[in-house]
């Protein structure tokens, strides 16, 4: 009975998170009031116009930033620093891999740090590199690889770490379209195979609909949730077929409209503020 209880409770809950930055003595409200929950095993995308505080929110969830108010709960415990059960994949692959370590060591080092025994480490690293199709490049340095391959290394490092939740901050924003499609399918496959929870931040509407079970749309900064949309596409997804489904186009349309509304809302508010002055 206890088992069912833990499975039903949300893995991640973001409760009234607000983040105010102070730069040059001026307070900037990046995130206003955000509340949402992720169930275990869910794949959710956070979409919003650029500069809407997505990254700030993600860093609050990852325990890299402390929210000004509100809190983030992971598996029933408040997040106060980077949690053990979480791995993050950043957008800037070129700056998130250790350039002084080869591919193998890059994937291995978080496990080494977590004092995972050597034999276990070897198995996890080999499996992770195999899952991202990089078993042949273990001896290379990251900077010898293409952008797409570097991001694969970062994904391998994240999955070898065996997180319960994987946070991805616009991971494919800086790779070319073809590589991007491959990496999208790779992330879907990893998610389905490992049964982990994925929170994927993107500004790409198509990408969010294609990848997720659920798309959470954010407003412009200061950020609130604009809409939380379930993606009722079949689990088997294909770059060509899924993207040409009428339902895909409808959902895409819906997300697009919400984002536009968010932008218009912000614009209207600005005009109102301007008119007042």
């Amino acid at each position, binding site marked *: 009975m206890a088992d069912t209880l833990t499975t039903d409770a949300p893995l991640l809950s973001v409760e009234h998170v607000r983040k105010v930055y102070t730069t040059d003595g001026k307070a900037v409200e990046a995130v206003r009031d955000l509340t949402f929950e992720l169930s275990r095993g869910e794949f959710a995308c956070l979409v919003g116009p650029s500069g809407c505080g997505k990254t700030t929110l993600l860093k609050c969830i990852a325990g*890299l930033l402390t929210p000004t108010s509100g809190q983030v709960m992971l598996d029933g415990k408040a997040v106060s620093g980077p949690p053990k059960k979480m791995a993050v994949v950043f957008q800037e692959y070129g700056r998130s891999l250790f350039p002084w370590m080869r591919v193998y060591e890059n994937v291995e080092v978080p496990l080494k740090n977590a004092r995972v025994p050597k034999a276990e480490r070897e198995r996890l690293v080999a499996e992770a590199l195999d899952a991202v199709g990089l078993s042949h490049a273990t001896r290379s340095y990251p900077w010898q690889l293409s952008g797409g391959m570097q991001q694969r290394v970062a994904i391998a490092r994240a999955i070898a770490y065996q997180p319960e939740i994987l946070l991805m901050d616009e991971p494919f924003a800086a790779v070319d379209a073809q590589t991007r499609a491959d990496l999208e399918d790779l992330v879907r496959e990893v998610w389905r195979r490992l049964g982990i929870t994925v929170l994927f931040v993107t500004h790409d509407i198509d990408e969010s609909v294609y990848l997720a079970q659920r798309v959470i749309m954010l407003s412009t900064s200061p950020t609130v949730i604009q809409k939380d949309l379930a993606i009722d596409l079949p689990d088997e997804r294909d770059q060509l077929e899924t993207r040409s489904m009428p339902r895909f186009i409808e959902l895409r349309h819906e997300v697009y409209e919400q984002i536009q509304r968010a932008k218009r809302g912000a614009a209207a508010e600005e005009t109102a503020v301007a008119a007042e002055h």
Partner: protein
Amino acid sequence: MKRVASTLLSTFALPVILIVIWFAATRQQTSAFVPEPVSLVKTFGEVWVGPAFTEQVVPSLIRLAAGLAGAIVVGIGLGLAVGYSRVLRDLLEPVLEFFRALPAPVLIPVLMLLIGIGDAMKITVIVIGCMWPILLNTVDGVRATDSVLTETARSFGFTGVSRFRYLILPAAMPRIMTGVRQALSIGIILVVISEMFAAVSGLGYQIVVFQRTFKIPEMWSGIVLLAIIGLVLALLFALVEKVVLRWYRGQREVENRGG
């Protein structure tokens, strides 16, 4: 083959020209204080090949090695701490600036009074003088650690020692090596100067003795030997750097090609 030839040419062209000019200028010389190339080479062999090497050169090299090793340990250790801790930086920076402005040789008279004229004094002078470029470069290197890399390391739970071992020290390594390179040349200067002050052995001591006893070609040969030691050290350093900073050179090369 052609490339090897052109490298050899560009490396040795100027030295050969200079030696030829030197040779021509000293052929009918009268000054006893300027040696001619042939007699210098002869004197060099006579003076430095044999027991003089172990009696005079080896002690200098040992002092230099000990001083540099001390400077590297202290410089990197202190540099990592100061670069990492804001509190420490705010506290120490003005003091460090003051001590850095102090030329190390002026410490020799002071240290002679405090710890005598032995090897301890000479090594201490080298440590203090060579520490600064390493220390300051390490501080800069630590502070320039990439923010995304830092966040990555944090998100994977790198704290304490492992944070230094896997992130901060390797990230600062290119700057640390720059500091060590500067320290090498300062080290040679200081070992010679400290031996000129008060010593019974060492290259600096020997050069002064030759000068005072008017053994002018011998004095010059000592200076040449110093230059050779400096050159060998620079080559050794280049070798070490090539291994330690392999990743850095490679990364830079890729970036330059891309951009």
